[in-house]
Structure formats: C-alpha cells, structure tokens
C-alpha cells in the first residue's frame, strides 16, 4: 500500500431505503492526515455516506475502502459477500465515530466509557486501559470528570467524552456526525476546539457539519453533496470562495448564512 493512496476511498456507492435513493454513486477520497468536511442540505445523503464508512448502514453497490480493505464485503471467488459480525467488529475498531446525540453508555462513568473498547476490543489490561482513558479525558479537558456518569455532565462535556472514547482506540480515521448539532450554542466552541487539536495532530477525519465557518477553518477538502452525489468538491477556498460553479451550492450557502446571522 503506497503512502499516497487515499486512506478512505469511496467509489460509485449507492444506497436506497426502499424506493428512496439516498446515495446515487458517490466518489470521494480522504487522503491520510486530511480533514474532509461534508456539507449539504438535509436529505442530501451526507450522514448516510458517513454511516456507510463504518457500516452502520450497508451500501447496495460500489466500494468503500479504508486503508485498502473493503468495508462492507469480502470478495471470495469474485463474488461479494456481506461481512460477518466478527470481521465487521475488527474493521470498525479501526474506524472511530462520534455521534450527534453523543450515545455515551449511561451506566458507565466517563473513564469506563473510554475503557470499554480498550479492554474488550484492544484487549488491554485494566490498569493500562484506565491510564489511557484518563490520559485522553485529561486531553479533552475533563480531568475533573473522570468518575462522572454521563447524566452528571453537560452536553459539551458528554461530547468530549464521546470524542475521547473514539480516539482512545487509536483509529485510522475518525468520523464525526454533526457532533455539535445537539449542543447549546455556548457549548459548541469547547467541542470544536478538541477537533481542531486533533486535526493539528494529523488525525484523518471525515466530518458532517452545519458549522460552515468551522468547516472552512479546519478542513483540507470540502465536499458539497446534493441529491446523493458529490456536487462540488475542493479546498475550502474553492468551495466557499467561488460558489459561482454551482447554483445549488450558492443557494445552500445563502440559506445557511441567513441562519447564522
């Protein structure tokens, strides 16, 4: 595997929920160490695409490779077979995900939330897992919340635990699904700050977001999805600076800006 090969390679991916075609042939590359933001109106397929990358949704055709491995299928005798549970678990362990609604385990403390994957998936000894978990929680600014249950934390704190839980697994790529959408406006900053630091440290990330200024700021590439396809792709400057290339993008950005004012 050459280093220049993209870490995540999406080719011609389609996905339908019943008669509703959500993805209509998506092509996308995420180079190592880059941050790719996916923007678009609701229903454009951006969250579905992200969820296909770690197979929380299956895709109907096309291919998604993460580090050279097809995520959803293994190919035997030239035929695609959906991957089994164990196979999938192994692949997912290397793909981190942070959720819009945090999805912390409510019966576990912040430290235990981060430890679970380290212990049961990575097979770390308890002391080592605890040390790693605490180290990450301190890094996201939660050194004083190690023993707190999710219910005892604010949304912003919970989301930072969510990030720590994902990155502690040392994933190849981190998927961020509208991670600030469920937060009160004053809590958005503390979460985005953590993501910025991860980007600076070279973490490969795919993020779906409605925070345009953040996307402009943190991304190496920005992808505008429309109707289940990649409509516009480029550097933040290209996508946000010269919207003339797509009427749909212009309209989308205009509506977003109205909301942000």
């Amino acid at each position, binding site marked *: 595997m050459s280093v220049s090969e993209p870490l995540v390679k999406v080719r011609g991916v389609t996905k339908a929920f019943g008669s509703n075609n959500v993805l209509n042939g998506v092509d996308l590359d995420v180079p190592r160490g880059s941050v790719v933001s996916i923007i678009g109106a609701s229903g454009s397929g951006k969250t579905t695409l992200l969820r296909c990358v770690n197979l929380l949704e299956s895709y109907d055709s096309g291919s998604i490779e993460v580090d050279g491995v097809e995520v959803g299928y293994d190919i035997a005798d030239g035929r695609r077979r959906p991957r089994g549970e164990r196979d999938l678990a192994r692949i997912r362990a290397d793909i981190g995900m942070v959720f819009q609604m945090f999805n912390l385990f409510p019966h576990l403390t912040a430290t235990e939330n981060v430890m679970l994957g380290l212990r*049961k998936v990575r097979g770390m000894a308890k002391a080592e897992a605890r040390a790693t978990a605490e180290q990450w929680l301190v890094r996201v600014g939660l050194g004083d919340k190690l023993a707190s249950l999710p219910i005892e934390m604010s949304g912003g704190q919970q989301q930072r635990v969510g990030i720590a839980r994902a990155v502690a697994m040392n994933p190849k790529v981190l998927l961020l699904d509208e991670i600030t959408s469920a937060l009160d406006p004053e809590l958005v900053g503390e979460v985005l700050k953590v993501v910025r630091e991860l980007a600076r440290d070279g973490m490969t990330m795919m993020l779906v977001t409605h925070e345009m200024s953040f996307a402009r700021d943190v991304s190496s590439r920005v992808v505008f999805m429309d109707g289940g396809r990649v409509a516009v792709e480029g550097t933040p400057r290209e996508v946000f600076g010269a919207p003339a290339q797509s009427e749909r993008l212009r309209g989308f950005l205009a509506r977003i800006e109205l909301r942000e004012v």
Partner: protein
Amino acid sequence: MNVMINSLPFLWQGLLVTLQVSAIVVVAAFVLGISLGVGLSFGPRWVAWPIRIYSDLIRGLPLLVLIFSVYYMLPLTGVNVTSFWAAIFALAAFQSAHVAEVTRGAVQSIPPGQHEAGKAIGLTFGQRMIYVVFPQALRRFLPPWINTVVSTVQGSALVSLVGIVDLMLAIQQVIGRTFKPMPMYILGALIYFAINYALSLISRTLEARFAYVRE
C-alpha cells in the same frame, strides 16, 4: 392448632420439593428465556419467527393443560422421564416463553444509538449484549422477571396433580387423614404467601439498586 403443628415436619418435606421444583424451573427458564428473547429481538427472520410462534402458543395454553400434555404425551414419543422431570419440563417451557417476552421488552427499550456506539468501538454482538445492553436493560427486566418467579412458585402447586408430593399435595394428604381442611389450607396459603412476599421485597430492593437515572 395442634393439627398445624403436628403436620409441620411432613409439610416441610413438601415445601422442599416445591422450592426445588421452583428453583430448577426458574434457572432453566432464565437461561432459555433470555436466549429466546434475544433471538426474538435481534435474530434474523428465520430465528425470530419460530420463537414468536413458540411463545404465543405456549403462553396461550393453561399451565395445567401443558403439564398434562407433557406428562401423557412425552412417553408416547418414546421419551421416558419421571413425573418429576415431566412437570419441570412443562413448567420451564411455560415460564421460558414469559421470560422471553420480558427480555424482549427490556432489551428493546435500549435506544438504537447504544447499539451503534457499541458497534463503532468494535464490540461484537455478544459483547454489545453483555457490556452495553444487558446492564441497562436490567432495570426494566427485574420487576416483570420477579413476577415470573412468583408465578413459577404458584404454578408449581399444579405438579401435585401428576402425583409429586410438593407442599400442595402434602397439605392435601394431611387433610385426607385429619379431615380438617380449613386450618391446613390457611397454613398452606401463609407459606406460599411468605415465599412470594419475600420475593417481591427482593425485587423492590434490586430495582432501586439498579436504577441508573437517565430521563
């Protein structure tokens, strides 16, 4: 009063049988019922459907009919077991269907986001059940499950009808000799009540113990 006291050693033997039958059935129904409930909730159609049919069928039958069916029909299929095990088999089949439904209700109350979070960190299905779903479902599982335990103790009285000398039959045998039904039935009722009331007290304690506040 004398009758009650004099009969106690004899009733004690019956009580032991009642407790033994109940304990075996509770354990068997627990293991089987949870497996069936998980299959019902998360299994593919070819797993879930047979369980659905089994559960609906079994729960639709009176327990007594089930016990007699097993007692008389098992030998016809060439399986020869004592009446003790036939009765246990019938009770366990009956209770496992109920435990399956209790399990289904409890695990389905866990939001999909919890499963997804478990998947996202690479947990296998079994690990997600053990470390994510079951601990959270426990609070919803316990109260109705204790109800099935109580109903097992009550239902175990029916094994007296296939000749097993449990508490119920012991009482009736004492009545058969003394012709004093009233005090004996009152004593029996008190014993059954004491067992089941203790169980519901345990249930309440456990429920409070496992109440992870969320809402």
